[in-house]
């Protein structure tokens, strides 16, 4: 087992790797010290971004830069990545779970004729095999899977793996092979930006606030957003709140929404239906605020307050403000 561990770079579409890459690189370095390589398909990479990958611990960066790589299309990316994989025979190909990486690495695995393990939360080397752990059945069970042959292709759930610490001054060798883009069958029409809440993205945030049916209506989410601004948290919602039309679907946490794994999850008026737990039960610290002492979310919460959320949220905002101003 001497091949490289590729980390497929997810970027912010502006030339910088997303911070979730510190987690992917950190885990790759734990599994294969000294053999961590970043493979970056982009239309534009910044020098600062390349430097960042080196500081996180990539020994080598292969930059595949081509205007045709944006916006992302799986057919174009896979052709370029498979060509490189054919030349270099990596041992593993790792990427963070994002909307495009989920599609891209699945398609790449099919091109290479190898297995894919998506949304992994743990890895272990057992002899010459890699065993991945992934939540299945609404997070009720953990499945351990392994590959018949290399490259081992996997996506990593954000906020689960210990991020590499940046080491200032550490650099990666950067290679820029000719990046050929096959003609794409699909043609880009337009991008429609979401109205930004100014708060972090759900799947990336270290702290997530979630409002459930107890929020009573769409107008009340403003108090959660106020709290979110104080502690730098994303604000999501339960299925009940989304299905009631209070929040757009992109804010839904749960089995038919986003899967999150923040350091801190705060649920307000969330009952804790199984399908919601499926999307947040790997959160590190879970706080539940609900009037109903029987709400199932209390069973998995680390801290709970049985009270009216409309009394708790303003108090909590005030207390956090005091704490963070210190």
């Amino acid at each position: 087992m001497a091949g490289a561990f590729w980390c497929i770079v997810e970027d912010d579409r502006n030339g910088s790797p997303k911070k979730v890459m510190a987690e992917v690189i950190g885990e790759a370095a734990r599994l294969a010290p000294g053999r961590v390589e970043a493979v970056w398909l982009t239309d534009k990479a910044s020098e600062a971004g390349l430097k960042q990958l080196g500081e996180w611990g990539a020994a080598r960066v292969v930059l595949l830069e081509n205007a045709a790589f944006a916006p992302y299309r799986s057919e174009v990316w896979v052709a370029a990545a498979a060509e490189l994989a054919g030349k270099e025979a990596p041992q593993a190909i790792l990427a963070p779970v994002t909307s495009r990486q989920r599609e891209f690495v699945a398609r790449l695995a099919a091109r290479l004729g190898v297995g894919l393990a998506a949304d992994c939360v743990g890895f272990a080397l057992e002899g010459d095999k890699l065993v991945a752990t992934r939540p299945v059945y609404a997070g009720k069970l953990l499945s351990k899977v392994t590959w018949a042959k290399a490259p081992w292709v996997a996506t990593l759930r954000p906020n689960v793996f210990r991020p590499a610490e940046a080491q200032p001054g550490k650099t990666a060798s950067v290679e820029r092979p000719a990046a050929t883009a096959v003609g794409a069958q699909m043609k880009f029409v337009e991008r429609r930006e979401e109205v930004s809440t100014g708060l972090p993205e759900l799947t990336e945030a270290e702290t997530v606030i979630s409002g459930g049916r107890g929020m009573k209506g769409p107008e009340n989410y403003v108090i959660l957003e106020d709290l979110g601004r104080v502690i730098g948290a994303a604000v999501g919602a339960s299925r009940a709140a989304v299905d009631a039309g209070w929040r757009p679907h992109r804010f839904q946490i749960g089995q038919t929404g986003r899967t999150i794994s923040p350091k801190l999850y705060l649920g307000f008026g969330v009952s804790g239906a199984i399908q919601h737990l499926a999307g947040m039960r790997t959160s590190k610290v879970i706080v539940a605020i609900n009037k109903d002492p029987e709400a199932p979310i209390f069973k998995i919460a680390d801290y709970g307050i049985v009270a009216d959320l409309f009394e708790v949220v303003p108090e909590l905002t005030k207390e956090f403000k005091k704490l963070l101003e210190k």
Partner: protein
Amino acid sequence: MKILVTIKQVPDTATQVKVAADGKTIDTTGITWIVSPYDEFAVEEALRIKEKRGQGEVVAVSLGPDRVKEALRSCLAMGCDRAIHLNDPAWAAADTLATARALAAVIKQESAQLVLCGRQAIDDDMGAVTAQLAELLGWPCAYWIMEETIDADAKSVRAARQVEGGLEVFDLPLPAVLAAQKGLNEPRYPTLKGIMGAKKKEIKDLKASDLGGAVEPSQLSVVGLQALPPRPPGRIIQGDVPTAVKELVRSLREDAKAI
């Protein structure tokens, strides 16, 4: 136009799942089975395309053991015209790639112009089959679509896919593969007439040999399945709201170091 919808039968979310004696699969006794919710969005969208165009055929396809017929039957009750059941023990341990290979063979046999899949099945949450189908067929693919329109002469589809921060809209020449995201539509409930009619519709059984060739071994295999370790018991903070909130903030800062 012929639309093929791939569906998977999965345990109902609320159902209790236990690990079977082999330590690798689930004990299926007493499980309530449903069509994976994302696949219902795919079925619904296929039916709407057919209704809007006033012509066409919608075929539901699924891979799995005998019980899967029930899931296919509910797709027929929603309005699919017929169903194909890939039913062969040779596929019992199929990974996403083996599944995609079998489905791709059916899609070629059927000469479908559009394939709709759910974003992911809610049992193993791999979310890979759509992309792998696209790869095996050499078709363009759009993931997590929130809306789609087929052009008048059925030569292309305009699809909006959900990405972090917005929607990206593409024109895909047909044939193409689309993965349905929640929000694409609101799936219909089968009517009584639909349920009665479904009993007369065809569910064709296919074996691996009908798809011309041996099943290649799975590239990913399950080596173990275990229950989630229980979380340590939590603590309900008592007292009036201001006191409890103060204690919560202190605990999060000092004990849990979460803020």
